[in-house]
């Protein structure tokens, strides 16, 4: 399935990427699974999306836990904890 992945703030800067269409391999059905898939690219991806790093995810613009399901056409976003206000 295909999903759109967006990155924000320090995650975007460190990955050098803002937006990407990703063909998600069969067997990956959650946000956490997608994050692990991206981490497996190695290099900066492994570092920025490491399990020890606090990275928040959103699916279709709702913040979610790593176990949240993803489906074709979803917009998934990864970003650091928010600091507005």
């Amino acid at each position: 399935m295909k999903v759109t992945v967006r990155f924000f703030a320090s995650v975007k800067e460190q990955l050098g990427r803002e937006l990407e269409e990703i063909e998600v391999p069969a067997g990956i059905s959650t946000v956490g699974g997608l994050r692990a898939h991206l981490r497996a690219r190695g290099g900066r991806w492994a570092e920025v999306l490491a399990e020890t790093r606090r990275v928040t995810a959103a699916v279709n613009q709702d913040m979610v836990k790593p176990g949240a399901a993803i489906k074709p056409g979803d917009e998934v976003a990864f970003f650091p904890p928010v600091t507005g206000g």
Partner: protein
Amino acid sequence: MKISVQRDDFDVSSELKLLSKTPRVGALASFVGVVREVAMTLEHYPGMTENSIRKIAEEARSRWQVIDCTVIHRYGDLRPNDQIVLVAVASAHRGEAFAACEFIMDYLKTRAPFWKKEHAAEGSRWVEAKSSDDDAAERWRLRQGATKP
């Protein structure tokens, strides 16, 4: 209810005047966040940011007797003393207005997708989220739990 995420500055007194014109209003509580010392750039997630603020404001309206409210948050480049955010709540009485205003602000800090990058003389850096902000939001959840039968 007015929710705005904008680059431009806002005028607090005209925003409050608009809210005070609502029927039955007896109390207006407002909070203004200001850039403290260092210039910064605020990034947001267009669409999600507005929606998350709206949800937080709706939650406040379900908890307190809120007649109307306004939330304006800026993004882009800001300098020291610039206004960042306005939360204003109109209610019949002050207790409800104060509580709803503080609730919206506390949740906004941890739920609304904004990120601050500070530009100091020695370089730029992303501001780290504070656990005290999580605690501030969490206390409202606990309070709600405590009032439930």
